[in-house]
């Protein structure tokens, strides 16, 4: 007798092998049998006719550290079929953390995640921990998604060095203390250490990890070597030459201590078309030496957003608009309000008042959204047509009506050429990831990259087969991170399963929601085509909603 039987699906088991029709029996949290199973043998039967039955997806780059304290499902990641997340990236985890250092770390988290301050002031959770194992205890009881946590280099540094963590290099004694702290975190269940050469705190000051000299990272990598655990790094991704130097540095650490390493993000841009090929060439050189240096590449294109209040480079290709945007606020408002100024800008916007240039922009947010919700998520062209205006006129009026605080989104401004990104994602030496789930929440949606992988690169460009795409975000990820017993539908493996319609799976439209504690908002994307998600043998989500299964585990 099985707890759950999934019937009639196409088993795409994560290995990359061709899918096949079969049933899947789950018992005691594990895959118990794959083969023909009678209905009578199942406690709960899920009909997967027309659907793919695959291992749950694994997202290796997230910042759900805080959200997990009030939302053990990491919504909406679970609904997208993600059954395991890796939080604690970019040198930042919520533990180990002394009470005295909370405010400083919160500033760093708010800079990255854009969570409102009150989330950390007791509105959303109580600070019940200092040590890493106690943080894990705080999230464990309500987990409905698996968590493979990284411990952050910056917080380890803060614990040992206090304010000096953002002032100087560490002494030999301090480095030894950091090593001990890292050991404790790894013993408690951390899957590795994260560090960053890029991130800043809320005062725009480099985070503690950026003050470390190479001997400190070397010493910490030595501890990772004792456990064979991951080193995650954010390199200076905006500078290819430095990124290549970091690839070399990671390769040396990987070989010296026999550890896997990964860096993120690596993304393509038409403005710098040589960057990715150069970085990948160095990755392949180092992989050929036996080093493990996994570049994480996101699936989704990069969108940008802006408002009239601050000058944006979006307008730097249009002199009349760019000059107007650079005016001091009062002069700017006067210019946009004047008949002459408005006429100049509409003319400068191009044919039909910017239909081609401004028309596709999406209205992302309007300050008093309660009375203007019908505007958000729509294109300027749509709203302009409704108002019998040109897109330029509509944009100006909307901005003036709302004190220049209407935000617009320009989609596909980078990493958007599927003929380049598709083959990159398919490359065996590319680690599909870098979603940043749970970060940048007030700027753009970091959810649904898995759905986009299938809609754009399997059904769309055909860069990957269905089986290759599944493997990329299941078994490959589990193997890269050393997550034993996951990522594959095979007897004895954890029953993390996603059932989805291969012809439908996608990410929904970006939408603003106010579902986080306090007054903040975030952008999300709903899942499309995901029918059911099973975590450690229990149904955690289906099309009727989240199940609060509470079967998530800390995995490593």
């Amino acid at each position, binding site marked *: 007798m099985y707890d759950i039987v999934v019937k009639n699906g196409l088993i795409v088991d994560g290995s990359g092998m061709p899918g096949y029709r079969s049933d899947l029996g789950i018992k005691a949290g594990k895959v118990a049998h794959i083969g023909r199973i009678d209905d009578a043998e199942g406690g709960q039967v899920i009909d997967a006719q027309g659907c793919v039955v695959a291992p749950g997806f694994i997202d290796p780059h997230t910042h759900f550290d805080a959200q997990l304290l009030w939302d053990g499902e990491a919504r909406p990641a679970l609904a997208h079929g993600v059954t395991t997340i890796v939080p604690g990236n970019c040198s930042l985890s919520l533990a180990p953390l002394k009470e005295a250092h909370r405010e400083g770390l919160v500033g760093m988290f708010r800079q990255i995640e854009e969570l409102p301050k009150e989330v950390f002031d007791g509105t959303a959770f109580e600070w019940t921990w200092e040590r890493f194992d106690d943080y894990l205890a705080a999230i464990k009881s309500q987990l409905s998604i698996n968590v493979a946590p990284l411990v952050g280099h910056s917080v380890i540094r803060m614990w040992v060095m206090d304010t000096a963590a953002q002032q100087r290099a560490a002494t030999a004694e301090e480095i030894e203390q950091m090593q001990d702290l890292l050991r404790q975190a790894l013993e408690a269940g951390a899957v590795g250490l994260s560090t960053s050469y890029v991130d800043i705190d809320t005062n725009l000051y480099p985070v503690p990890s950026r003050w470390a000299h190479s001997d400190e990272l070397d010493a910490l990598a030595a501890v990772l070597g004792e456990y064979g655990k991951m080193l995650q790094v954010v390199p200076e991704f905006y500078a290819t030459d430095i990124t290549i130097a970091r690839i070399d540095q990671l390769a040396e650490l990987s070989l010296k201590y026999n550890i896997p390493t990964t860096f993120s993000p690596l993304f393509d841009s038409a403005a710098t078309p040589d960057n990715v090929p150069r970085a990948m060439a160095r990755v392949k050189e180092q992989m050929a030496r036996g080093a493990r240096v996994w570049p994480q590449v996101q699936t989704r294109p*990069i969108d940008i957003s802006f408002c009239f209040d601050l000058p944006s480079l979006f307008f730097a290709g249009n002199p009349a608009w760019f000059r107007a945007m650079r005016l001091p606020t009062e002069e700017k408002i006067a210019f946009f309000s004047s008949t002459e100024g408005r006429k100049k800008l509409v003319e400068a916007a191009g044919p039909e008042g910017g239909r081609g240039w401004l028309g596709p922009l999406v209205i992302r947010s309007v300050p008093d959204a309660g009375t203007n919700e019908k505007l958000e998520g729509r294109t300027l062209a749509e709203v302009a047509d409704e108002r019998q205006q040109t897109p330029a006129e509509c944009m100006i009026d909307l901005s003036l009506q709302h004190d220049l605080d209407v935000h617009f989104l320009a989609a596909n401004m980078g990493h958007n050429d599927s003929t380049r990104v598709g083959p990159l994602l398919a490359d065996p030496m590319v680690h599909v990831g870098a979603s940043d789930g749970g970060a940048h929440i007030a700027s753009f949606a970091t959810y649904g990259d898995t759905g986009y992988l299938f809609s754009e690169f399997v059904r769309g460009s055909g860069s990957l087969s269905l089986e290759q795409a599944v493997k990329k975000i299941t078994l490959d990820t589990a193997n890269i991170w050393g997550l034993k017993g996951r990522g594959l539908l095979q007897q004895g493996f954890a029953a993390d399963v996603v059932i989805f319609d291969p012809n439908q799976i996608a990410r929904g439209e970006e939408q603003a929601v106010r579902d986080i504690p306090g007054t903040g908002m975030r952008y999300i994307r709903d899942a499309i085509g995901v029918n059911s998600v099973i975590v450690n043998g229990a149904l955690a989500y289906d099309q009727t909603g989240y199940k609060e299964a509470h079967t998530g585990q800390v995995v490593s």
Partner: protein
Amino acid sequence: MNQPVGQNQPIIIAADVSGGHDGQPELILKIRYENGVVGDAVMENALGVKLLAHCGASHLSELVGKPWQAVIEILQDTDRATSGATAPCQ
């Protein structure tokens, strides 16, 4: 800043805007160095806007031919660059 642009200093030979990791536009500059090597430099939105102002440029194409020194100056003195009223680059 007022020194003539020649072969003895790095110059901007192309400029473009692209989406950055954090959802903000970035200014991508292609720089040719004194020894002929060409490399990229990326500037975040606010700094890119300041550079354009500092150079008296209202269009990306107007950055072409400007000295790399302009970037150094706004990095050293962002307040001065914000006004856009100081000596424009040559």
